[in-house]
């Protein structure tokens, strides 16, 4: 028997905000994954490890300086640099081989996660939240840090979205993703576009890791928990569609935030995965997908 408790307005708002904050983290992970997949066709299994690195980086800087904001910036930068090195030195020459790309990023992700486990141990680390108070929004009191996460997510969505649609860089990314060799003969340095996109995607993962650290704490395999969900989000949203990953992340966040009212959360997760499986079969390009890194 399903039992749907009456939801008061305040509860409704709280749940919706829960969904938004969860959805934003998923979105940050998924959008990076989706950019990389849409552009390069690479299933980047190391993406989850980048998230973990972002989180641990933040943790380490906080331990050293006590400053979360510094940690956020430094770790995102460092992980982006690592992404740069990875793309330039390792990945670029296997772009034509999706299977090899998948396997090598799988291996690289494994190495990063295990290295974290060796260095920090497998247990989880609590990361002190920089904003511990609650604030009043729409008549409910809500953790200010989670609101911050929602705002950052929204800002990134808007910012990256605008770059993709309005700027020349966005145009070049679109062109490279859709017809790489044509972009080349129009004078686009597609190798550079690949690098920029990979680094951007990696930075988004690191940002997600840094942002989620104070909420969920940090452990080496945290990426795996997010990456499965993120893959499924980009399938439903359409591989490579930035808009798609945003919309679907928001939906998934809300489904989880409200789903527990009728079904235990793990079953909600199972349902979300099952829905994604059906999507892969019947609408592999997703809602928004034309394999376009655009809009």
């Amino acid at each position, binding site marked *: 028997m399903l039992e749907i408790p009456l939801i008061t307005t305040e509860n409704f708002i709280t749940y919706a905000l829960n969904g938004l904050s969860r959805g934003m983290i998923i979105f940050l992970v998924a959008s990076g994954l989706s950019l990389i997949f849409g552009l390069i066709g690479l299933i980047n299994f190391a993406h989850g490890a980048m998230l973990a690195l972002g989180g641990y980086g933040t943790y380490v800087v906080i331990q050293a300086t006590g400053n979360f904001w510094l940690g956020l910036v430094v770790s995102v930068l460092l992980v982006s640099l690592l992404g740069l090195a990875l793309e330039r030195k390792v990945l670029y020459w296997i772009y034509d081989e999706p299977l090899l790309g998948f396997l090598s990023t799988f291996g690289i992700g494994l190495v990063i996660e295990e290295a974290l486990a060796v260095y920090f141990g497998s247990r989880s680390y609590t990361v002190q939240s920089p904003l511990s108070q609650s604030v009043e929004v729409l008549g409910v009191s809500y953790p200010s840090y989670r609101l911050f996460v929602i705002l950052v997510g929204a800002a990134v969505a808007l910012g990256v979205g605008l770059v993709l649609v309005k700027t*020349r860089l966005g*145009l070049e990314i679109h062109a490279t993703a859709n*017809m790489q060799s044509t972009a*080349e*003969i*129009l*004078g686009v340095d597609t190798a550079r576009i690949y690098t920029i996109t990979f680094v951007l995607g990696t930075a988004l993962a690191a940002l997600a890791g840094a942002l989620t650290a104070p909420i969920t704490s940090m452990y080496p395999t945290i990426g795996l928990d997010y990456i499965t969900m993120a893959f499924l989000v980009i399938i439903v949203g359409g591989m490579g569609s930035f808009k798609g990953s945003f919309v679907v992340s928001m939906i998934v966040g809300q489904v989880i935030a409200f789903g527990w009212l009728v079904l235990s959360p793990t079953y909600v997760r199972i349902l979300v995965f099952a829905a994604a499986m059906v999507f892969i079969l019947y609408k592999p390009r997703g809602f928004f997908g034309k394999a376009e890194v655009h809009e």
Partner: protein
Amino acid sequence: MSELLSVEDLNAFYGDSQVLFDVSIGLGTNDVVGIFGRNGMGKTTLLNSLVNRIDRKTGTVTYRGQDVSAWSPHEIIREGIAYVPEEREIYPALSVRENLELAMTSDIDDDTREERIQNVFTQFERLGERRNQRGGTLSGGEQQMLAIGRALVTDPDLLLLDEPTEGLAPTIIDDVVEILESLVTGDRAVLIVEQNINRMLPLIDRGYMIQTGRIVEEGDSEHLSDEEIHDKYLTV
């Protein structure tokens, strides 16, 4: 005649199969050169080899005295070359305007950009009318115009055209020929690949005939209009 582009002993391959054999051609500034030959003889492959858009090749390509054989396509293009590919390769999801924008590198200032785009819209009125339409929804002929327009906005020194009249209605072909004529009066060189040799003979200074990947004939338009040569290399 100062050499703008010269190609020596070019061999090109797709996987294991060789498509071009020891091809050598040259092109000076202000030259209009044609490459002719039947289906599948290697004309497109030759153009692709010039900008390194091919799996594997040997031989040298020199442009303005620099050996560009190993450059990547965009580097060669940025030296002032524009390429109108055979398949047109219009971005279906981008608007006509965005397709044109894409071809202009970022060092061009906004005013110049605007001016060049407007130029294209005057040359092909039809495109002007459709400026915000998505490339994918244009008719075949319109796409061909856009492909040529996309080359013109870069104000190139060397224009590579692969079958620019293909798929165009006869009236549009006349337009295109006219535009090409106006182009070649400027300080430009043009390399045209065509099957439709008769349309191009009035336009070109020189031409090459290609047969299964080998240059088999070379000469001015008079020489190439020879019946015998046509029978031998062009009729099917």
